[in-house]
């Protein structure tokens, strides 16, 4: 008991009121972050998911505008005068906060979620981050205090406590409970991925080549030959229009219906590639000889960007993915008006 008393006194000296204050600070930082995210997700207008090419994003506001950009901005502002006032306010809010479904320069956090899977990943990240901050602040505070107080001049005779059964048991049990709290949401998310809920409505094949992608929509075939197929090449930097993102734009986007269960079959025709779209929470390796299936449900319309995520040669950085989610009503007309002529163009070429 005496030893326990000595131990607790020493522990109290290391982990004083200051330490608790710092821990509370850490907790409040994480709490504020969660609160902000919750607020943003509750306001659907802000999560309209417009792509970089339609609006000036936060990244554009940092650099001073060039003359051509000022011209374009004026043109855009003129157009927006025709909109009702509500939309302007919402768009202005959107501009200042600017969630984009593409990576921003110096971005620290995740891109905004557009599927339940990605939202689950972000929520899990927040759960784990809470415990991470707790442990980080606690351990670093003890470390700093130990280094600070056990100076050879200030404390020439150090304590020589070697054992302390009770505290050793506590400091083993307590850290093993923390991973249990982390594991609960983690396993819940992991197993929810495998749950088969609904048959997919559409199957889209994404085939990787060096160094472009081919998309096949074969649900509409009546024979082996007729297939809605098109290639998706990146737009080179010289051909970019104002507002488009370098290394992220493609000529033919993958058009998918929103609010629909999709099955994406990812494969490759030559070497390993990977089909990754962070906003949709999907990253699926394209292995030649394998048809990797991934299931997504895009919850909101928008344009989502991603990049090849498995080294595949010289132009590995130049074969991005752009998924455009449109409403179910528009999907039919998009496919017949846009994708079928694209297929015919390729067939003729």
């Amino acid at each position, binding site marked *: 008991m005496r030893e326990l008393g000595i131990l607790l006194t020493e522990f109290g000296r290391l982990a004083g009121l200051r330490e608790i204050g710092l821990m509370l600070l850490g907790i409040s930082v994480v709490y504020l972050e969660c609160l902000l995210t919750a607020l943003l997700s509750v306001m659907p207008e802000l999560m309209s998911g417009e792509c970089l090419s339609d609006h000036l994003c936060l990244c554009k506001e940092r650099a001073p505008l060039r003359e051509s950009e000022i011209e374009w901005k004026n043109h855009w502002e003129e157009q927006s005068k025709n909109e009702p006032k509500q939309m302007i306010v919402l768009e202005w809010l959107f501009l200042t906060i600017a969630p984009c479904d593409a990576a921003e320069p110096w971005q620290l956090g995740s891109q905004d979620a557009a599927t339940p899977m990605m939202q689950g990943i972000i929520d899990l990240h927040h759960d784990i981050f809470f415990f991470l901050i707790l442990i980080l602040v606690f351990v670093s505070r003890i470390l700093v205090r130990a280094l600070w107080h056990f100076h050879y001049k200030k404390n020439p005779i150090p304590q020589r406590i070697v054992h302390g059964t009770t505290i050793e048991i506590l400091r083993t049990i307590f850290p093993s409970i923390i991973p249990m709290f982390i594991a609960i949401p983690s396993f819940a998310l992991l197993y929810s991925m495998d749950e088969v809920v609904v*048959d997919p409505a559409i199957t889209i094949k994404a085939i990787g080549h060096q160094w472009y992608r081919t998309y096949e929509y*074969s649900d*509409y075939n009546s024979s082996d030959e007729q297939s809605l197929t098109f290639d998706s090449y990146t737009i080179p930097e010289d051909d970019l229009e104002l507002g488009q993102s370098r290394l992220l734009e493609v000529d033919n986007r993958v058009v998918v219906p929103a609010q629909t269960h999709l*099955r994406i079959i990812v*494969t490759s025709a030559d070497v390993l590639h990977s089909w990754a779209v962070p906003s949709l929470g999907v990253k699926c390796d394209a292995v030649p000889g394998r*048809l990797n*299936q991934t299931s997504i449900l895009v919850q909101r319309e928008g344009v989502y960007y991603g990049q090849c995520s498995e080294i595949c040669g010289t132009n590995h950085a130049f074969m991005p993915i752009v998924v455009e989610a449109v409403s179910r009503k528009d*999907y039919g007309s998009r496919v017949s008006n846009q994708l079928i002529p694209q297929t015919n163009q390729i067939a003729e070429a």
Partner: protein
Amino acid sequence: MQVEEVKTAPIDMRFPGANQARHCYTRYLEYHKCIEAKGKGVPECEKFARYYRSLCPLEWIERWNEQRELGIFPGPV
């Protein structure tokens, strides 16, 4: 091509994992076995045809069709 009410290949619990290559291959074999048994143009066989066309890349289908024509297809068809 009809775009509106089309169903795609359903989830087949014989192939629960991520790799659906076996699923695609099995549907292809099922179609051709059905054709051999019942003849072309039968609606039940067309169902299998739609399934394998949804799942299999065009490259694979073309290669298998070629192999069948040359008599070198490695499967039981």
